């Protein structure tokens, strides 16, 4: 009998958990609405394509950040890592696709190795990924000192793909988020990863390897970082190791906006997609509004604060 009663009660705890992402969703739609009121073309397929396309690599890099945050780590190297991937894409992947692919796989492996070292040597991920970010930057400059190169044709074709009646950037965002959701929220791999972030002792007692969980999380993050780099290269038509350096902190903000936390144990792929799009739209809103050029970063900061403050308010109401 109690089970029935409990099942019928509105799941307030769940509501509270979803609240952050809901606030971000509202913020996202509010921003689209503001854009649309300033420029009615925003709501056309072309308009949506234009304003969303730049958020695609950001969203996917934010999913990578989320994988690490779900084990309680933070990645301060993701920006330079994505930049390094664009560099490899623009050089090796064009000149000899086989070697290029091998390099990219090697990068994913390097991420997994970094995760393993962090775990085995028990060092803080924050500083290890910070150190790694210098390495990614150095490697990128080494491979391609000057921004340039070109993207493989298949990638460029994808970058300029414009189906009728459907904003193309939505596809990679939805597909990547759905994959991450299947992997991290639904699948058993995700359970291991989140369990590690939540309570590593429990994982170990059940005979599962915390090391494996962390390595998987890092490996998936690395793969997502590679994907983000490929998509960024498809949009920029070349490689530039420092083209994504702003991603490092923005992706953290996107995960937080999407309802993630620093504590680990949570995977919020859909929230991250929304948080990433919201943050990506800030630039659009800024360019549509006539904000004085000097004040634009202040407005960006204020928007982030306002969305998070909204979260607090909703959280209080739901409590």
């Amino acid at each position: 009998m109690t089970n029935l009663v409990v099942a019928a009660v509105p799941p307030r705890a769940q509501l509270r958990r979803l609240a952050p992402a809901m606030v971000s969703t509202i913020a996202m739609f509010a921003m689209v609405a503001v854009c649309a009121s300033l420029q009615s073309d925003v709501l056309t397929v072309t308009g949506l394509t234009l304003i969303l396309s730049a958020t695609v690599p950001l969203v996917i890099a934010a999913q990578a950040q989320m994988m690490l945050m779900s084990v309680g780590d933070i990645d301060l190297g993701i920006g330079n890592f994505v930049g390094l991937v664009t560099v490899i894409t623009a050089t090796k992947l064009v000149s000899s696709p086989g070697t290029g692919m091998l390099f990219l796989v090697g990068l994913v492996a390097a991420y997994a190795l970094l995760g393993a070292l962090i775990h085995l040597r028990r060092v803080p991920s924050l500083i290890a990924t910070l150190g790694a970010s210098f390495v990614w930057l150095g490697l990128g400059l080494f491979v391609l000192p000057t921004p340039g190169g070109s993207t493989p044709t298949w990638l460029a074709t994808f970058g300029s793909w414009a189906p009728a009646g459907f904003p193309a950037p939505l596809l990679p965002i939805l597909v990547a988020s759905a994959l991450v959701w299947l992997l991290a929220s639904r699948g058993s791999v995700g359970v291991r990863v989140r369990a590690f972030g939540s309570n590593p002792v429990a994982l170990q007692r059940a005979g599962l390897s915390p090391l494996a969980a962390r390595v998987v999380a890092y490996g998936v993050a690395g793969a997502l970082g590679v994907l983000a780099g490929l998509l960024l290269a498809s949009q920029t038509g070349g490689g530039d190791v420092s083209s994504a350096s702003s991603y490092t902190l923005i992706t953290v903000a996107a995960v937080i906006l999407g309802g993630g936390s620093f504590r680990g144990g949570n995977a919020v792929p859909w929230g991250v997609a929304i948080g990433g799009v919201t943050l990506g739209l800030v630039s659009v809103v800024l360019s549509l509004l006539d904000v004085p050029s000097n004040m634009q970063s202040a407005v960006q900061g204020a928007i982030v604060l306002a969305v998070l403050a909204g979260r607090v308010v909703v959280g209080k109401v739901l409590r």
Partner: protein
Amino acid sequence: MTLRTLARPWIWGFVASALVWATILALSSQGGGQTVSLALSLAPYLVIVGLGQMLVITAGPGNIDVSVAPVISLAGFVAVAATAATGSVAVGVLAGIGTGLAVAAISVLAILGLSIPPIIATLAAGLIASSLTLSLADGFTAVPDEGLRQLLNLRPAGVPVLAVAVAVLTALVVALLSRTTYGRSLLAVGQSRPAAERAGIPVARVLAATYLASGALAGLAGALLAAYIAPSPDLGTRYLLDSVAVVVIGGTLISGGRAVPVGIWGSALFFILLDGLVNLVGWSTAAQNLLKGGLVLFVLFLAGGGTRRDATTSRPRRRPRPATAATAATTTGDNTHG
């Protein structure tokens, strides 16, 4: 016990800087003493920022101040403008410190009032500060005070006056941490925020003071750097990542609760000497970054470990409360949270 002390990472900053110094000496076979002297005239700025960052990191998991870079830039302009307006260097430096306090106040409001994670709150405060910097920089006319610059360049017997002053500041921070209630409270909050709260420590006040201190120190660094170099909108850019890196290589626990102010000197010297070495050898930025990153990782992986007990055998916790995750079971050297 001695092995453990050896493994304490703060030693590695000094070891690494000694190695780099020896390499420089071997390469150029001259000016060994002067190399140290010049490094000591650059290190204090990084040490000042690092001390503030260290206090913040010591406040426990998730605490980090990513607004130091914009604060340095903004404080530089404000300090120079205030000095020019009043003719007093002291007023200028105080204005720089005040600027840091003001930006930190925004972070504090967001962290404590709105429960926004520090990394995001300070990011937003920093964005606001950089807007102010750009507005100030637009048509900025004041020039840094010559007297202050000469003071910063003063090196009687090869020992920079500023280095001595910042060494005193470091000693003050050491004393602050061990001799004052604020310092002890900060260390307690960093070890376990709930435990500190139950021990009657005013956690919010301690956190507020900590972020304000970091802001003030970044502001001070900005005021001095503006006189030493020149006010510019990207005066502080490099200091964010470097300040975090020097704190951690310096041996401060990234998970909070243990601060090693002296260690910052070792790692700051290491970074500065490394720059010198790279420039001397004429390596490209690619090599410079690879070396820096590689060495950070090397020192980290070599010195890391050992502090966290094996997960299965850690002492059981008696009663987890509904609101809490069971992750607090491992207490020291745990994985970091921002």
